[in-house]
């Protein structure tokens, strides 16, 4: 038993104080967001934000949830495209990286350069748009949301360099044991590369989850709109309404109690809320995934 001295206690109190303070910095903004989303719009306008709603109102949620299907649908689209895009993306990128990482593949230099080249010089927005809409005819399909991220040059290069760190002798010995290339890829290289795969998967998933630009460019069909784009559009529409209020005049009476600031925050809560509850349960797997293989046993 170690005796506690006054100094220890002081240090402990100080440390806890700093940590509590830091935790507050993280929690208070969230609380304010929730509070704003539950506040009366007019009160917000006149008295500003507060940590707890002065005048409680669920108007913002009522407004957004007038069409709950749109929100649920957008969630569905985003979840589906994230899962499909991540699974197939990691699969295809690792399949591309596998031969390119092999010292016994003759054309790896040229092909790697070909992949690398697209990182330096991209086609530009207009040509990309033309290819997607006219050649591939992908506009207004679910495909367009995740097909383009199946291969990302940067991630392929990342995987190539990781695969290279796997000793070539292992591949050779597997070959001697009679393993086919597919078996080597599936049974040896992939299991040994879990940390790299996890990293790439996380990068791809985050990108797909936050994707709105692709939707903006290619999606007109209501039922295929992704979550982020849906929210962005709602916000822009609100701003547009406010702008029109300025331009057209008489707006104050017109717009009435249409929620604006509170609706934005309500949307943030609806969009981030489920993730905040889901993430802690998956966090340990994420951490594990990133740690796998880092300690050689």
């Amino acid at each position, binding site marked *: 038993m170690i005796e506690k001295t006054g100094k220890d206690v002081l240090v402990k109190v100080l440390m806890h104080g700093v940590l509590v303070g830091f935790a507050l910095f993280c929690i208070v903004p969230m609380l304010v967001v929730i509070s704003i989303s539950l506040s009366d719009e007019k009160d917000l306008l006149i008295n500003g934000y507060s940590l707890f709603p002065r005048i409680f109102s669920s108007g913002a949620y009522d407004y957004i949830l007038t069409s709950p299907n749109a929100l649920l649908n957008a969630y569905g689209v985003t979840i589906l495209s994230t899962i499909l895009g991540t699974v197939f993306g990691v699969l295809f990128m690792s399949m591309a990286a596998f031969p390119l990482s092999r010292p016994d593949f003759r054309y790896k230099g040229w092909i790697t350069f070909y992949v690398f080249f697209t990182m330096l010089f991209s086609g530009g927005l*207009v040509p990309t748009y033309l290819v997607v809409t006219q050649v591939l005819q992908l506009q207004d399909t679910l495909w367009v949301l995740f097909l383009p991220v199946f291969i990302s040059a940067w991630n392929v290069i990342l995987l190539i360099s990781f695969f290279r760190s796997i000793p070539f002798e292992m591949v050779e010995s597997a070959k001697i044991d009679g393993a086919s290339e597919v078996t080597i890829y599936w049974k040896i290289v992939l299991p040994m590369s879990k940390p790299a795969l996890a990293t790439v998967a996380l990068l791809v998933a985050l990108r797909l989850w936050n994707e709105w630009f692709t939707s903006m460019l290619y999606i007109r069909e209501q039922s295929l709109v992704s979550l982020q784009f849906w929210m962005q559009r709602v916000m822009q529409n609100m701003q*547009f309404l406010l702008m029109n209020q300025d*331009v057209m005049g008489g707006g104050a009476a017109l717009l009435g109690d249409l929620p604006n600031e509170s609706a934005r925050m309500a949307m943030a809560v609806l969009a981030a809320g489920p993730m905040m509850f889901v993430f802690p349960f998956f966090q340990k797997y994420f951490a594990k995934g990133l740690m796998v293989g880092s300690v050689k046993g």
Partner: protein
Amino acid sequence: MKRIAAMALTVTMLMTSVLGFSKPVELVWYLPGGGTFPYTDSKVVYDAVNEILAKNLNVVIDFKVPGAPGQYNDLMPLNMAAGEKMDLIFTSHWSNNYVKAASNGLYAPLDTLLPKLAPTIWKDTKDMLTAAKVNGKIYGVWGQQIAAKTSNLNVRDTLISKYGWDFAKLKSPADIEPMLAQVKAGEPELIPLSTRKPVAEWMLPYLGITGVGILPEVLGTRVDDGKVKVFSLIDDAKYLEMVNLSRSWYEKGYLAKDGFTYSNDQWGQMKNSGKVAFDFHNTWKPGEEVTPAPFGGMLVTAPFGQSFVEGLSIIANLTAVSSRSKNIETSVKVMEYFWTHPEVFNMIVWGLEGRHYTKTADGKIQPDPKAGYFTNSAYIYGNTFLSYPVVGSNPAAAKMTYDLNQRAKKAKTMGFSLNLDSIKTQVAMVTSVKDQFYVPVVNGYIDPVENLPKYRAALKKAGIDELLAEIQKQLDAWAKANNVK
């Protein structure tokens, strides 16, 4: 309802084909915004509009609304480059750049078509459309609205009745100084004057200065001068009077002490929440001198000085016809139809009566922003003067605004569009100098005596002289070609 409309549409289409008419021509109309979130009723409204158009014009329109102006602006260059089918296109200087697209040949010239196929549009806006000329041709129809710029002042009615102010005697911005003093003394919780934009900027119409198409905070030309000449604003004596006025007000405490730190949005919010007493503006709408304020009560507006129309107010909302369209003439006819038929125009702007708005006894309308269709943007669809007056607005305002537009002096530079190719560097450098000096110096947050010379020197270093010379050269060439004196 939706199904009935669709059925009615099919029936009309069937009938017309049975009776020997051709199938309705389908036009594609691209525009921003369009209906409030969650847009549930857009299709219902479009179907109803199409039913009327099919009957009367043998036309149906596919309305394409990619999003609010920001998204619209990102998307349209792509759509046009991809050669997507489009006939009518909303275009302006702030979303889907008009001059750029027109000079790239994406729009069809309308000079000869308008007088022939759209006589009302031509009669109403002939003079204004000079501003929409690019390389001598008109490529768009202006959705007529307030175009005249007039410096004006607004303040809430309670303060007016409390202090007994009389705005009829207002001649210049300096005249409000005693009122600012009263507010400062008597209303400690209010900021006497909002400086969302500097006083001098709001007073440009009062001073008779208009822009040349770029850097409106730095460059200007005189509306009423004998010649077309571009100059640096801070070299203009009258402009400097405004800067000095603002400085003296700042020193007397009539402006917010920390005004420099507020963003445009924050100023807007402070105004909407009733934390400022006076606010200047540069657009004044006759007939709408008293409007409801967001924080309750009324806002009273008082104009001073002359009104004039500048090119930018016209190319703020145009509808162009795609040069690739196979139905250019029909498209122009459709615009004329919307321009002259209040029934259709109000349907596309406000939705369906009884469902998206209700009519009051005095012929005004009360829209319901939550009913699933609410654009509140008549200016995107065309002739805003055709719009039904909204509850709380003045039904006579449309006519008064039209008259003001006609009466107001037209800036000489209307129709001049600047070619920036040779002066891009200077524009970028002058812009960054402006970003550094403009707000603090012109508002008078810092002493002009000391800082104006610094601002001037920095502008000189950034190449404002070459900029002025090049713009003047283009102006002279343009004035000569168009016989402007």
